[in-house]
């Protein structure tokens, strides 16, 4: 999901060249493959194992992992109600990624729009927007999210809203900085002289040029949002049963650490692998996009070291 956005925004060249760069960096290749498998699981997994994720089984209660006696779906063990962890991981992945994607998209569009306005206009509301970004930035996001979620009640919509708000300052500031530079360009003066309204200039002429930067930031932010969401769910103010995310699964398993470590271990590992893959791909994309670094991927075999 995210790797494709990074690829399409970071590269002027063709996809084939990118594939070659990807194979040159083994770590990035592994990350891409992992994310690809994850996306396939998220898209098709719930259709196959969705029923299993909620299926109680007294016999399989706290079943230890790595045993195939009960079938492959129990390979990672079962939780305290005998539900197979593998199936729950797949269903949980869908919720986790959906929330993160929704939050990042909201944050990007709302924050981007606010940033465009703040950069283009000198009116009082521009200052209000910037102040708002300062207030959000100057305070630990998790604490703010906890208060808001406790007040509004934890639900999926509220979770998305809170996560989107806490990530917004980055988009506001980036969009504003870009607009400040872009609005001095010739094409803006040309549009102005032809009588275009401010709104038209901002959203038709300037916004398309700001968007690629924002998409790149969104891709990098995705991992951060996944981590933030799982922290909130872990603290019990995120998603509520019967829905669950990976973070909530870790919280469920916390009470059974000494007897059944696997309940809390696997979902956390899933979070780690996902965010790590996203970060590895982001750093690979930075190397590809940076002309002074790209040679590392171009001439790996001929390199002196």
């Amino acid at each position, binding site marked *: 999901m995210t790797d494709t956005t990074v690829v399409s925004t970071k590269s002027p060249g063709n996809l084939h060249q990118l594939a070659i760069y990807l194979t040159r960096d083994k770590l990035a290749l592994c990350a891409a493959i992992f994310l690809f498998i994850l996306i396939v699981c998220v898209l098709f997994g719930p259709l196959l194992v969705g029923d299993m994720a909620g299926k109680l089984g007294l016999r399989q209660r706290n079943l230890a992992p790595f045993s195939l006696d009960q079938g492959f779906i129990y390979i990672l063990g079962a939780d305290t109600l005998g539900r197979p962890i593998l199936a729950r991981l797949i269903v949980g992945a869908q919720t986790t990624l959906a929330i993160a994607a929704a939050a990042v998209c909201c944050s990007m569009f709302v924050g981007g729009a606010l940033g465009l306005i703040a950069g283009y206009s000198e009116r009082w509301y521009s200052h209000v927007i910037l102040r708002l970004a300062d207030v959000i930035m100057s305070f630990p996001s998790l604490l703010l999210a906890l208060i808001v979620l406790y007040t509004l009640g934890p639900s999926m919509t509220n979770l998305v809203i809170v996560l989107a708000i806490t990530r917004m300052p980055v988009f506001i500031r980036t969009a504003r900085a870009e607009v400040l530079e872009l609005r001095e360009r010739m094409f803006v003066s040309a549009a102005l002289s032809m009588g275009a309204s401010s709104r038209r200039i901002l959203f038709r002429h300037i916004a398309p040029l700001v968007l690629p930067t924002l998409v790149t930031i969104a891709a990098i932010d995705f991992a951060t949002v996944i981590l933030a969401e799982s922290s909130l769910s872990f603290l019990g103010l995120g998603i509520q049963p019967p829905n669950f995310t990976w973070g909530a699964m870790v919280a469920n398993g916390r009470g059974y650490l000494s007897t059944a470590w696997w309940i809390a*271990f696997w979902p956390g590992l899933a979070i780690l692998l996902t965010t790590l893959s996203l970060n590895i791909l982001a750093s690979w994309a930075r190397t590809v996009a940076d002309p002074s670094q790209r040679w590392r991927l171009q001439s790996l075999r001929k390199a002196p070291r």
Partner: protein
Amino acid sequence: MFAYIGRRAYHSVISVIGLLTLVFFLTRLTGDPSALYLPLDSSLEARQAFAKLNGLDQPIYLQFLQYLSNLLSLDFGQSLRQNRSALEVALEAFPATLQLALIAMTLSTGLAIFIGAMAAARPGSLFDRVAGVVSLAGASTPDFWIAIVGILVFSVGLGLFPTSGTGTALHWIMPIAVLMLRPFGLLVQVVRGTMISALASPYIKTAHAKGMKRRKIIFGHALRNSLLPVITVAGDLMTGLVNGAVVVETIFGWPGIGKLMIDSIIQRDFAVVQSTILVTAIAIFVVNIAIDLLYVALDPRIRY
């Protein structure tokens, strides 16, 4: 420079007032504390008396004005839960978090500077690659999970460290290690990036040419010039560290400001929530000012 600090303080005060207003009204939306603090079968009169005693019977905007005017005389209200000054409760929990955060930040910054500089000295080497993966992993690890795994391995499995609480030096190791992970991971990458570009500058070539020792070039010349962005990021991470502290304090039962905050939100102890926010915001402001001053000390070109 004092004018600069004054201007910063002025902006921060506006931010903090905005934050306090937001929190004041948000916490009031969560419901009536008398439902939590009085017995279920208590009479209507008792509830009204409780509300009157704590000023909850007034319209909300009057409560807010009252709160602001009390704030000016440094009265932060009473904690409903502990029946004493809310500021006292917040300040009591503050040192535990401050110590935790400062130690974690100092250690992770120091370590990250050293490892990042070593990695940048030979880009593409084995050390650089390992450092790269380790730092990315550190930045991507969910802190609550690594804390749980730490408890599982070191406390339950090996019996090395206590699972929670404070007291001996052993109690400090796991919370600090968990808290260090994320800033360490992010800082190593920043240090490496800035160091690589610093090492490519002409004055490094000059230093090489006049036969200086490699170690002295890296740590004496290049590092000093690449510290500025590192300090900026470290300052930003300080705010984020409070996030980590909330999680770590909850898991390890650390009596700090994060745990106090969660407990107070859940128990509708409004005054304590507001004063913890105020204390945290002031601490963050002080850190930011300290970083600005550090800038001046490190870079003679910068004047405020």
